[in-house]
């Protein structure tokens, strides 16, 4: 069985999910190859070899610098066939979610999205994917020649495991694009996206208003965390929608999720209950967030958070 890992990149940077998928594939003990479409990543080989990639292919072609969902899908589908891969592995990231179903349709190969477990039993893949916003886990099988899997970011952590990477360039015929990205509007410069963050500090309606968000930001900064929000905070216009965690926002599974003034409605839990550790700060002991929290403080957040900031500053010094 051969796995083709779709290398994800943004602004010339390899995204973490690529390393996570390498670690995952290495644990399955099957041959694999990492492919990147489009961009120049100057030290791709060096970076990838640190995680144990032995075969890396950089796909070149005119016009590929800009992402096109249909164009990239056609190229990726061709690559899977030409490189005789049995499994295409991608991240359940914005790009993976956009691209994988198209490849699935082109190749008539089934796709299991957002998997939280990928195991090999004989030559059968055993996959687990959450459904119903995480209320149920499905054991899924793919019965086909080519199989496509996207893996939820942050579920498998990347481990360094050096190898020698053989980096090749391959030039492909670029199809006509039906859709092209005209412009990318990045969020605040250098802002860590919740889906990629190892630690997230999220605020909810308990924060009372945007003027208090400096507390969330300061705490996040000290923890090296991304900032998130509940829908109540987003709907009130206190925070941008791209920070929203939950069923209608983003699904995250960081190592540590700190919920500040968030009640823990089922739709919020849907987006964060697979976090490894959950801390809740809420003054209501009955708040449902305490049902999923590993550690909780039942108190006024306006006392707890400044104290956390103070203590963390002390620890830093």
């Amino acid at each position, binding site marked *: 069985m051969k796995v083709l890992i779709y290398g994800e990149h943004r602004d010339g940077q390899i995204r973490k999910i690529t390393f996570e998928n390498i670690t995952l594939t290495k644990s399955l003990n099957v041959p694999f190859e990492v492919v990147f479409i489009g961009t120049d990543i100057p030290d791709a080989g060096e970076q990838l070899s640190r995680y144990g990639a032995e075969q890396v292919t950089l796909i070149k072609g005119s016009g590929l610098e800009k992402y096109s969902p249909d164009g990239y899908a056609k190229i990726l589908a061709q690559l899977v066939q030409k490189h005789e891969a049995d499994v295409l592995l991608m991240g359940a990231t914005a790009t993976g979610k956009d691209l994988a179903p198209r490849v699935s349709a082109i190749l008539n190969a089934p796709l299991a999205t957002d998997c939280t477990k990928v195991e090999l039993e004989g030559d059968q893949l055993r996959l687990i994917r959450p459904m119903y916003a995480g209320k149920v886990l499905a054991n899924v099988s793919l019965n086909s020649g080519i199989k496509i899997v996207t893996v939820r970011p942050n579920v498998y952590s990347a481990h360094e495991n050096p190898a020698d990477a053989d980096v090749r360039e391959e030039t492909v015929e670029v199809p006509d694009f039906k859709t092209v990205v005209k412009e*990318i509007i990045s969020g605040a410069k250098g802002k860590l996206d919740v889906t990629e963050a190892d630690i997230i500090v999220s605020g909810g309606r308990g924060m009372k208003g945007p003027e208090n968000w400096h507390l969330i930001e300061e705490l996040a900064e000290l923890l090296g965390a991304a900032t998130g929000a509940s829908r109540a905070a987003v709907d009130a216009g206190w925070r941008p929608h791209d920070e929203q965690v939950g069923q209608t926002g983003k699904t995250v599974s960081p190592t540590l999720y700190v919920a500040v003034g968030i009640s823990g409605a089922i739709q919020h839990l849907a987006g964060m209950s697979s976090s490894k550790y959950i801390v809740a700060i809420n003054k209501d002991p009955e708040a449902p967030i305490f049902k999923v929290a590993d550690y909780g403080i039942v108190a006024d957040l306006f006392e707890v958070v400044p104290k956390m900031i103070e203590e963390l500053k002390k620890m830093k010094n």
Partner: protein
Amino acid sequence: MNIAVCVKQTPDTETRIKLTEDQKRVDESDINFILNPYDEFAVEQAVRLKEAHGGEVTVISLGPDRVKTAIRTALAMGGDRAIHLKTEKHPDDPLVTAKALASVLKEGNYDLILLGKQAIDDDHNQMPSILGALLDIPAVTVVIKLEVDGNKLTAEREIDGGHEILEFSMPAIIGAQRGLNEPRYPSLKGIMRAKKIQIEEREVATEPEQLKVESLQYPPPKSPGKIVGDSADAVPELLRLLHEEAKVL
């Protein structure tokens, strides 16, 4: 503008999900079914475009008989026609659903096909993109803004850490994300009107499924967490636990 909206009927987000005894399926007996929340944005956008540019909105849903109530909701919001693709149950494999939808969509010659970005039961996140490839037309999903200028479309979609603006032309597919619009509540008049619309039923022969849900399970129960304290005095202990026990700091 000739518009199609594909809608799925899903359980209400608040519904407790119970599994059947053999853990093969979800027990549907106590479920309150609704129109998939993301599909409300798709229907709303379709109706607004019709109101602005004229034309017709066809609502399409594949699934068992019960999905008719979701179709009625979409009609009450302003849909004009409806096609129900009858199957015994919702297929496990999105590719199977997509092929059945694609064959109906092809016949309809639609300028624009709207869907939700995700159905909140199976959470596949696949249909808009699959249909784009099957029908070989532009498909843009997780859309929060859509502008129409003659035959040209400009869509803004959410990506990790920002937004992307794409340009393409009709016919095209859009996967709607929250933020695209504020869906209307069906008016009484709308509900009465919807009741009079004949839902066209079609039998579909679905292909064999390559993706199979072998079994379902509940997520492992979380062991009850620790309440570290009831005042800010508990902060040092919390940080110690995070550092020494959880090892995350």
